[in-house]
């Protein structure tokens, strides 16, 4: 076994859901099914019709043969014909109806699961969500729900008939002859044991096979997206070996699964032969003893075959169940996650109107550390954002600039000190009310598919077209004027039909549409050229007079006019003050300025 394979085995072991996961999955399953009691009842009733009808046909056919040879009565034949017809209609009708109900049931449960996971995702805080990761959350919301949906449907179609068929067939057999009834009970028990063993043996390999398929996909994607790096570092043969070993382990497992299946198939086939011959032998004896009639032998054989057939289907469906359960438990993980950021039970009100203090927000010795990191990302920050003032934050990549913005929005909570907004600890107000008072431009401008107007109205649903145009003009997004559809121009997912700079300006306009106490620009100017940057800052200064502004930036030119500059160095406050002051007193700031001064004479003013 190669090292790579061992990796995978280990992963599979940790990926199997364990008892806790199974319990959570089953609890979620009960919750999901609960609203559909009547639908499920309908499914059971129609399934019953299906099976009874199905088994009644060979029963009546046997009766027909028996009458034909015993009574030689053509009218009685017709009677059996009619019974068979009824059985066919009830059986097939029941089957089709049960499939209809089951499809609806499964689809509804799938929908509920998707909506619930999505709803939960909205409640989760940033760090909760990142624990799962966007990719994994998408999988949990969409394909996991699909798997669960298919599991329910297949489970019903393939496993539902087993108990019903066993019970009804055995009852019918007892009706023919008690000895044959007992024979059928014995046959059923033997099959049950054999199939149970088969499932028990093959389920783990089957689950593993699935993970090997995923593995092939991951490895191939890695190879293809990294082909330049692979070639640059001359690691082609190593990557090829990695791929080949993944392919080999998959083939190996797949062949093993096939062998288990072949063994199962052949065993079942053989069992069928034994059962058929036994029923023929014992049946003939019973006919000879006047206990039953000759025509019933074929009915009994048919009962046995149907029991075996449905069990075989069930066996297949059972193999799919672990996957379905794993998906359910993954969804359950999301649903049971407790957001690290919760609204207080009795939220405090933020002051409004004339009570609003001049100090909009204050970082009161705030520290922040990510979940299990061993160093603070932000350490002992202490400064205030005041109405009518522009506060700028500058620092290296990874110095925690964006975290400051996210803390104001309460995407993260301080792990030390406290953050006040309008005089209240942000943890004492509801997230919704807090965010209602802040307008935010994210680092990565993200727009939603729809129109420009729809995107801008995310800032304020009631904004008039004039407000939208005004915001666009301030944001230097005059290009919208030139679009044929203006405000109604289409925006594709993520806003990818606009350039990075255009997207950024639209995101700024969206923020300006909202009237807020605090405007946060998280590195929103770096995608703009210097000229637009300057024009935008100029236009903004008049616009945001009544509010506090937080400007996170990389370029000194963007922030040098700020009323207050906060300099961060590896998460610590390296200095707070105006540009000129900091150039004199703060070495970190001076270093930043000097590093950028080479970019032409921009330090001489714009």
């Amino acid at each position, binding site marked *: 076994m190669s090292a790579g394979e061992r990796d995978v085995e280990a992963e599979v072991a940790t990926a199997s859901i364990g008892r806790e996961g199974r319990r959570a999955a089953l609890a979620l399953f009960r919750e999901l099914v609960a609203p559909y009691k009547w639908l499920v009842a309908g499914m059971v009733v129609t399934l019953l019709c299906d099976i009874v009808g199905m088994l009644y046909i060979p029963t009546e056919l046997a009766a027909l043969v028996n009458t034909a040879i015993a009574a030689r009565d053509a009218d009685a034949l017709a009677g059996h014909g009619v019974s068979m017809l009824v059985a066919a209609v009830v059986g097939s009708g029941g089957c089709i109806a049960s499939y209809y109900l089951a499809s609806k049931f499964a689809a509804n449960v799938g929908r509920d699961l998707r909506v619930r996971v999505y709803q939960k995702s909205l409640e989760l805080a940033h760090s909760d969500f990142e624990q799962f990761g966007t990719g994994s959350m998408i999988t949990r919301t969409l394909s996991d729900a699909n798997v669960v949906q298919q599991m329910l449907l297949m489970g019903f179609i393939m496993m539902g008939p087993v108990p019903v068929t066993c019970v009804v067939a055995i009852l019918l057999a007892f009706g023919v002859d008690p000895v044959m009834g007992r024979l059928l009970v014995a046959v059923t028990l033997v099959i049950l044991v054999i199939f149970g063993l088969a499932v028990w043996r093959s389920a783990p390999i089957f689950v593993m096979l699935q993970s090997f398929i995923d593995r092939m996909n991951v490895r191939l994607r890695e190879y293809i997206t990294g082909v330049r790096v692979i070639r640059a570092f001359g690691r082609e043969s190593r990557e090829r070996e990695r791929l080949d070993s993944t392919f080999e382990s998959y083939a190996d497992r797949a062949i093993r699964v096939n062998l288990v299946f072949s063994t199962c198939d052949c065993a079942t086939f053989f069992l069928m032969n034994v059962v058929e011959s036994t029923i023929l032998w014992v049946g003939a004896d019973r006919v000879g003893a006047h206990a039953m009639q000759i025509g019933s032998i074929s009915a009994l054989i048919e009962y046995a*075959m149907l029991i075996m057939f449905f069990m075989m289907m069930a066996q297949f469906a059972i193999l799919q169940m672990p996957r379905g359960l794993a998906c359910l438990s993954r969804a359950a993980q999301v649903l049971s996650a407790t957001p690290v950021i919760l609204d207080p039970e009795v939220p405090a009100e933020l002051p409004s109107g004339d009570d609003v203090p001049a100090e909009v927000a204050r970082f009161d010795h705030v520290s922040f550390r990510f979940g299990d990191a061993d160093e603070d990302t932000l350490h002992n920050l202490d400064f205030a954002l005041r109405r009518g003032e522009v506060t700028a934050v500058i620092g290296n990549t990874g110095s925690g600039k964006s975290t400051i913005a996210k803390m104001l929005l309460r995407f993260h909570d301080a792990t030390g000190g406290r953050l006040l907004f309008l005089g209240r600890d942000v943890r004492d107000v509801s997230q919704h009310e807090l965010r209602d008072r802040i307008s935010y431009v994210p680092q990565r401008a993200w727009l939603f598919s729809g129109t420009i107007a729809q995107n801008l109205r995310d800032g304020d649903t009631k904004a008039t077209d004039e407000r939208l145009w005004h915001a666009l003009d301030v944001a230097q997004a005059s290009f919208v004027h030139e679009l044929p559809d203006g405000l109604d121009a289409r925006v594709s997912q993520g806003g990818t039909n606009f350039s990075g700079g255009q997207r950024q300006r639209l995101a700024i306009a969206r923020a300006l549409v909202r009237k807020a106490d605090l405007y946060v620009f998280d590195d929103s100017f770096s995608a703009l050229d210097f000229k637009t940057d300057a024009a935008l800052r100029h236009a903004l200064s008049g616009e945001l007079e009544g509010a506090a502004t937080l400007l996170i930036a990389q*370029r000194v030119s963007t922030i040098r006019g700020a009323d207050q500059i906060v300099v961060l160095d590896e998460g610590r406050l390296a200095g707070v003050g105006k540009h000129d002051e900091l150039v004199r007193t703060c070495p970190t700031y001076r270093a930043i300025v000097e590093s950028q001064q080479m970019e032409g004479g921009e330090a001489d003013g714009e």
Partner: protein
Amino acid sequence: MASDERDKAAALRKAPDGIEGERVGAAPADGGAEGDSEVPSDAMGTARRLWESARGIRWRLVVSAIATVLYVAFSLAAPAYSAYVVDLVWRNVQESFAQGRDYVVTMENGGRQILTFFSLWTVSWAFYSVQSFVMSSFAERLNLRLRGLISAKLGRLPLSYYDRHQPGDTISRATNDLDKVSEVLQRGVMQLIISAVTLVGAVVMMARYSVVLTLVFCCFAAASALLTKVVAARTLSIASRRQEALGTLTGKVEEAYSGRAVIKAFGREGDSLDDIRACSEDLARTSAQADFVTNAISPAIRFLTRLCQVVVGLMAGSMLIAGRLSVGVFQAFFQYVTQATEPLTQLSLTVNMLQGALAAAERVFALLDEDEVEPDPAEPELPASPVRGRVAFEHVRFGYSPDRPLMRDVSFVAEPGQKVAIVGATGAGKTTLVNLLMRFYEVDGGRITIDGVDTRRMARSDLRAQFGMVLQDSWLFEGTIEQNIAYGRPGATHDEVVAAAKAAHVDFFVHTLPKGYQTMLSNEAEEISQGQRQLLTIARAMLVDPAILILDEATSSVDTRTEQAIVHAMETAMEGRTSFVIAHRLSTIVDADLILVMDHGTIVEQGSHAQLLAAGGAYAELYQSQFA
């Protein structure tokens, strides 16, 4: 009735139709192959090529085809023999009854025949088992072989292939398409034989007993074949509507998750939830329909079969009364009816499956037939060691497609240890230069030399070993941070890795991670920002310590101060070595020995910062526009 269920149950194993749907959701971006036409353009040719590829394991296919025919033959004979057994038993029973005593099965009066019946089935079973076991590894072995060819091919495909194709397209050829092929080879081919032989055989056997009843059966058979066709067409259209709904929902969810911060910041949770709910509702509706129609086919067909049974039963019953049919034959006839019904629906499905598999195989072969890079020269040259790093472009001509030449006559020289900067607007073709240097693409004319040796006369691996490269999109593979940094030098010690990380200013960040250098990364690693990913790839390049360094916009997500520090560290490390730097910000390259200004894929100016400013050309303009 027995063998019918045997086939059905076995068929289930390999065709979990309902469960197929989930793949779609898992890889929405990779739709490529799914949408392709499912009809092979050259069915015979592809089949022949598959046959060729199966060299060495073909005997398995032959053996199992023979075994399959024999298996079907015996399972067709069994009901006929059972008719004889039942009639014999019935005669014996009647004789015993006439003599006023009970009938007991013994070896002499029926028992031997029952055992013969059992043996008949056992022989059939034996052939089935041979087929099943011989085939169990055939398809996967063939697949493994083809996958091996693909992994070898991936190493020989030119970069232009990767630039032209979506990753998902290639991946699905190596996984989904080959799985389709193996699924069909495993079951489909044998199923085709089984269906065809069974159908013909059963009808012939039926006709031997009663032509009239056989004709009745044929009428119903035609009706169910028709029904299958009609429903199948409808299934397709409903399935595509489900697909559409799933696509819409997938798009919405992806978008919402990517834009989560915006949704929360603007308090739009309610609207977003309504949106997702509406899309989910739509998906639930269409998928309930699609699932229903797909699954309802078989009970519908079964209903027709049952009607057929009623009609045949009544007719055969009266024939039984009239003495024109025996009990055994009556029952045997019914077994043939069920035996023959199954292949009817199976046949059309199997043919579709075969077509789909051949189309899939064709896509795989198309990948294997893609043009490859020229092989390395038989006797590759090498620059004299130690490599000094003098890089020269001599009258280089190049274009990504022959009809759109980009570089017409480009020449420049980078002396050993010089810093060469490449500037130009986005899309000016800065990466083209890297593509040519690393021989990701070949020049159309002229030559590129390293220490005077034409790079085309060197082995690619020797050439690339001279370069350390940090690319635009920072690729990390699934493994620990340490393994990622050591990618170019697998033997590096932990201390060397840490030293490289420190030099790349990423050591601090790695320490904030819970598991430090042992943190597992994946290529979609979300826990790491773009800037930090770039720093990691810089550390990776620094560890290799090559003669020539390429920095392809490596610093675009890193702020100026970090960038300065890195460049500084790089320059120390690259003392006496040649480096090519492509940067957004001119601030990092004003001190370069040579600046190459690119526009529309070619070099329009070259010289030092001062020379170029003085020239007042494209560079001067670019510089003014950035810093005006």
